[in-house]
């Protein structure tokens, strides 16, 4: 099975994040950039399917030149090769334009199965799998906590608020996964060394037949007008339980009219 995993480099969600003062795009230059956490589960799932059914795993990333670091990290887990879509004109692309670019790149890869994380930790927009499926005319099985593959038949358990849904489709398809689906492997030393030699193909907009004006800030379908930090919360009252902590706690709730 020819599997493509979408990997996005994002600013570390454990550190302070901000928008760039100059153009209100996500500040990536000064951030500690990492693989989007949910994508590690997507990579693991792809590798497991390859191990069980054979085939090849390709990492697909759209991002600035510095995203190479995350691509090598992804490859160190075990995928065979990578495609890096990079072009200065892509800076500031909205989700709609991003889906156009990724769909074009996927068009060159002939994937049976596209696996991605259910969301990225920077935008948390959650729309990419369905946008890609819409553009490519293939199935989208999203929010999977479990994926099984039987020949060309795919079945997922889609996590919902009330439980789960069982969804089926045939390949080709896009599957997005939550972090409950597996436990991603750590790259081995051998994997890290091997990743350095794995092929990474770079594609620019001209390779994909997309004009610069269709993407980036110029082609964006939405714009951030202003950005402000929310004032940090301040600590309130802290009491130490000396036998009546529970009663004091309820007295506070009562004063705030919750009880």
């Amino acid at each position, binding site marked *: 099975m020819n599997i493509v995993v979408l990997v996005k480099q994002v600013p570390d*969600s454990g550190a302070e994040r*901000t928008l760039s003062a100059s153009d*209100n795009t996500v500040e990536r230059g000064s951030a500690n950039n990492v693989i989007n956490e949910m994508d590690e589960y997507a990579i693991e799932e792809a590798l497991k399917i390859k191990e069980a059914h054979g085939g090849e795993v390709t990492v697909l990333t759209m991002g600035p030149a510095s995203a190479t670091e995350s691509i090598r990290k992804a490859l160190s887990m075990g995928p065979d090769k990578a495609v890096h879509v990079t072009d200065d004109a892509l800076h500031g692309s*909205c989700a709609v334009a991003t889906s156009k670019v990724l769909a074009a790149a996927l068009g060159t890869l002939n994937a049976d199965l596209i696996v991605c994380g259910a969301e990225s930790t920077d935008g948390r927009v*959650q729309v990419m799998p369905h946008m890609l499926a819409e553009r490519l005319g293939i199935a989208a099985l999203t929010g999977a906590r479990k994926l099984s593959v039987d020949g060309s038949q795919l079945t997922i358990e889609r996590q919902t608020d009330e439980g789960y849904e069982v969804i089926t489709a045939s390949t080709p398809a896009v599957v997005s996964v939550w972090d409950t689906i597996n436990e991603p492997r750590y790259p081995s030393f051998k994997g890290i060394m091997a990743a350095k030699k794995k092929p990474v193909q770079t594609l620019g907009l001209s390779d994909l037949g997309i004009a610069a004006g269709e993407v980036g800030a110029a082609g964006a379908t939405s714009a951030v007008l202003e950005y402000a930090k*929310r004032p940090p919360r301040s600590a309130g009252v802290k009491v130490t*339980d000396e036998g009546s902590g529970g*009663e004091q706690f309820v007295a506070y709730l009562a004063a705030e009219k919750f009880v």
Partner: protein
Amino acid sequence: MAEVLVVVEASQAAGVKKVTLEMLTIARTLGEPSAVVLGGEGAAAQFAEKLAEYGAQKIYAGEGEEVDGYLVAPKATVLAGLVTSVQPAAVLIASTQEGKEIAGRLAVKLDNGLLTDAVDVAADGTATQVVFAGAGIVKSKVTRGLPIVTIRPNSTTPSPQPASPAVEQLTVRASDADKLAKVVERVAEKKGSRPELTEASVVVSGGRGVGNADNFKLVEELADLLGGAVGASRAAVDSGFYPHQFQVGQTGKTVSPQLYVALGISGAIQHRAGMQTSKTIVAVNKDAEAPIFELADYGVVGDLFKVVPQAAEEIRKRK
């Protein structure tokens, strides 16, 4: 006034979700709200009364097996057809996983911008979004097409405004491509009758400090006494104490209730990301240095196995 389409978030079991009523309330400031019900046969009739109560001037019904039997795509197709024919001032959709997915497909179909996770929409279509896990606020606008905006639950207080909407049945024409992902089964796992996590006005969450799955009864008891939903930190979910759909945090649900109670949760960034826009935060933790106290309006340093039962008893007394 132009129509504003509100895509109804509802389920057969739970009825019309609160976020739908919030969207109808917001929609009234943008134009005339029309509710769009996308679901199985008879869904619109089931939800009509509630939608009327909150000001829906019209109800569009896109119903049937073609809509309900496949994942997301047919809903987006029906909605895109409706948008093209009525040319609304805006489309509001719930910022849930499926809501965002519908919005994403709609945006591609119409080559239109979209904004997700909004907490407010101004009359000119400018949306306010909370970003970076509650650390920042942006104001943004769709610059191509009409505003397609997804609204986060608990963004505003729904206010009733009775109307008498007529129900208009939509013709459902799903393409073959819309029917590639088939819904084979819907399984309910939810126990009890607690409010839904993202919509609840009170959330009581347990963390690693709760110790084991059995002890989560304590968290549930307090939640039930406060009429709230139960949440769990990632540490508690990863340890198998509580199911994943109740996880609050960066890789789980984002909640913004009136009251958030954190029991045995240290308050790692991962968790804070999902709850720090809550109005009031209270915490019980035995570690006085736990970061959760940095954002708690009221904190009790103590053993939750002593503090919580005593609190439960005290609430019962006061009732």
